[in-house]
């Protein structure tokens, strides 16, 4: 029961203590790293050190799936459970490891305790079926043992990066991380230097003129967001980079962070200068240990190189970046839930209004932008607004990253000007459907997205083009299903994803995701009740209309779109006869 406390955790905790509650998640991560789990004594110790009521410390531990209140195995494996990995045999991988470890537990004395869990999307969809071994990524195959998987994490899986343009990804996909020196050789931080010579207002004007809208899913105009935060009364102001990429099928922000981290830091610097912030946070999902390490090293490099810190380049502008790790909660990608998480609370979304630009992190004016959005900023200033707007369509200017996965010959990250047809992405860049099969469907925008069918193949991948087809572009996820796939499996997995990831705050989503899952279970087995159609519609539209946040409002989006395209799958067989 009693754990001896090594000095490392003690000293970490006492160094975090002055920050108070906001250091709760970092302290819990540190405790888990030191002990493998968080016991009641350690949780109490943390609560006392940070001044957080114990019941609330417990509430936070319970909210995040990567935090454990009981000892877990010495080797922890997460097997991705979402559509792209399922197509590649994730279920078999999971069963294989369970079978093998159960056998080992019986047969060998002193064998390490291996724990294997199914997990939400790990952001490794191009390496399906994906596994995290002790938080490090590996591509699995059904014939592998867990020992082989542990060995496989020594090399990180490499994402194929290509596209019609290579602006955001100019330095990506080369299987190395761009260091500061190399970044400088490729015009790195020049946009920031240029920005420092202009007024903040003129930077905001350029971003507005560029037509850039958020790349995280909600597509809000970035320039307007900055302007609103710049004009909002109150200080300090914050810039937050939302690197909590967890949309099933999304891995673009991971690649940007792993390959070209300084572009994101430069984007944050320019945003901070434009709105008058001196502190920034980069919140990265807990499953992204590797990108976290890369970003941490890059921030340290930037500090040492004089790009972060006090009076940068001899100007009056100071800026520092703190990196925060999430701990397993898709909801924390919702901007206000992310703030709550940084503040040391359960990741419950807040009511809006008020909006983050006036009442954001710690109640202060805040700009929160997605990783890819921020990576666009140096590009806009370097190219100039006019050249930037020549990319894409008039209403959707700029380049966009698409995460292509599923049944295509060449899954990967593709950069294209907005407006290219879906067919181009799948057939030309992705080299078509695997094994010469036919295209059946694509899930666009991730779990919160909608399905495209063969009749959508010529729809332009732009915000307006997709909207006209009733499909959200979302974060740029395209998961492809060939004609041999039973789509009901994907529907069921999407329903399960939302039931697992609902925070539980508002009734429509808390109960609706569960009810939706129960009905989808019947649909999966081909046994929907005659009245399930109406039930799904009522549950789906109630979540869409009445939930507090974007998670609940989109939790039925893909399934409602599937009901439109394939109504027969949702009706009992006898009605078909």
């Amino acid at each position, binding site marked *: 029961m009693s754990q001896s406390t090594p000095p490392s955790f003690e000293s970490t905790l006492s160094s975090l203590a002055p920050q108070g509650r906001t250091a709760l998640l970092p302290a819990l991560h540190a405790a888990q790293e030191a002990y493998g789990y968080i016991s*009641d004594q350690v*949780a*109490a110790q943390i609560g006392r050190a940070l001044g957080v*009521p*114990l*019941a*609330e*410390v*417990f*509430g936070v531990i*319970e*909210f995040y799936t990567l935090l454990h*209140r009981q000892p877990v195995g010495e080797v922890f494996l997460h097997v991705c459970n979402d559509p792209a990995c399922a197509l590649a045999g994730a279920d078999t991988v999971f069963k294989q490891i369970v079978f093998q470890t159960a056998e080992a537990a019986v047969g060998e004395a002193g064998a390490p305790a291996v724990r294997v869990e199914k997990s939400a999307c790990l952001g490794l969809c191009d390496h399906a079926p994906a596994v995290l071994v002790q938080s490090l990524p590996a591509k699995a195959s059904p014939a592998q043992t867990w020992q082989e998987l542990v060995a496989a994490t020594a090399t990180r899986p490499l994402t194929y990066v290509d596209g019609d343009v290579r602006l955001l990804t100019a330095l990506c996909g080369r299987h190395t991380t761009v260091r500061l020196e190399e970044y400088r050789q490729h015009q790195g931080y020049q946009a920031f230097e240029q920005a420092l010579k202009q007024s903040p207002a003129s930077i905001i004007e350029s971003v507005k003129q560029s037509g850039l809208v958020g790349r995280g899913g909600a597509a809000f105009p970035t320039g307007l967001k900055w302007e609103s935060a710049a004009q909002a009364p109150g200080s300090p102001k914050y810039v937050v980079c939302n690197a909590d990429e967890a949309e099933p099928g999304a891995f673009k922000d991971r690649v940007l962070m792993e390959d070209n981290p300084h572009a994101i830091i430069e984007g944050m610097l320019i945003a901070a200068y434009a709105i008058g912030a001196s502190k920034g946070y980069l919140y990265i999902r807990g499953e992204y240990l590797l990108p976290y390490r890369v970003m941490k090293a890059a921030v340290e490099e930037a500090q040492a190189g004089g790009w972060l810190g006090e009076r940068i380049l001899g100007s009056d502008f100071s800026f520092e970046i703190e990196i925060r790790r999430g701990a397993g*909660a898709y909801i924390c990608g919702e901007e206000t839930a992310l703030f709550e998480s940084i503040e040391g609370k*359960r990741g419950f979304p807040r*009511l809006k209004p008020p909006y983050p630009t006036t009442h954001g992190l710690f109640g202060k004016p805040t700009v929160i932008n997605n990783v890819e959005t921020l990576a666009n900023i140096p590009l806009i200033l370097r190219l100039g607004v006019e050249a930037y707007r020549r990319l894409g369509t008039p209403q959707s200017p700029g380049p966009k990253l698409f995460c292509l996965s599923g049944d295509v010959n060449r899954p990967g990250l593709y950069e294209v000007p907005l407006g290219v047809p879906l067919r181009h992405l799948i057939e030309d860049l992705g080299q078509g459907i695997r094994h010469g099969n036919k295209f059946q469907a694509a899930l666009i925008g991730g779990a919160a997205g909608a399905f495209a069918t063969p009749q959508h193949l010529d729809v332009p991948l732009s915000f307006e083009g997709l909207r006209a087809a009733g499909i959200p572009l979302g974060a740029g996820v395209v998961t492809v299903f060939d004609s041999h796939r039973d789509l009901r499996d994907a529907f069921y997995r999407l329903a399960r994803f939302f*039931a*697992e*990831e*609902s*925070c*539980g*705050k*508002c*009734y*429509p989503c*808390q*109960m*609706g*995701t*569960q*009810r939706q899952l*129960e009905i989808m279970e*019947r649909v999966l087995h081909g046994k929907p*009740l005659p009245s399930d159609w109406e*039930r799904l519609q*009522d*549950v789906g*539209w*109630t979540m*869409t*209309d*009445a*939930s*507090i946040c974007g998670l609940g*409002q989109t939790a039925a989006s893909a399934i409602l779109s599937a009901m439109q395209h394939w109504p027969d799958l949702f009706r009992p067989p006898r009605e078909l006869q």
Partner: protein
Amino acid sequence: MTQDRIHLTIDGISTQVSPGTTILKAALQLGIDIPTICYHDYCTANALCRICVVEVKGARVLVPACTATVQENMEVSTTSERVQRARRTILEMLYATVDLSEAPEIEAMAEAYGVNRDRFPGAELRHVPLIDDNPMYIRDYTKCVLCWRCVQVCAEDAQYTYAINFKGRGYETQISTFYEVPMPESTCVFCGQCIGVCPTGALKFKRQHLLEVGYALEDILQMTRSERSGRRRRAERSA
């Protein structure tokens, strides 16, 4: 001072109220009753039950009347089809989740909205064993609708005791003490305010509970504190 009044229509009726008024209160002034579950006059409103949603012209999604404040020229409908569907479905889902046998206000709402209490066949009820760990009150979370009021009055809304918070998340959320310790080992001061704000009988004074499971009042009054706490009762064992 008419310029200090906000003009709006609710269900087609024009009205004016002072700025900062919530839609809920503005409607009440017109005698329009908007149903609520989580809302309580003396607790911070979190707009989480969403039963009070109304349709505001021009808004993408429905708006919670308990927290949304009136705006000039707002057009509110408290009875539109979208509103009715959301309220009815939320109630129907609630019946498939929670034991509402001691929630008369929700019962009345169910009647008013023509709720089918068995709308979701095969649904997994959120069933948890009754917690009887102290002499003052019992916690029967099978009846808990997660309105958060008890957590709030235990914290900043009243008592600053912080004995309870949440366990789990999503559908599996439950009110809990630190590491689920029995209430006497928590920071609870047994002020009873959580019981006062509980709308569904999930929190109940021990005496009421004992009466309900078959004890006579005289028996209860003669019990010692330890007799009243913790142990399972004869009546419960035989039940």
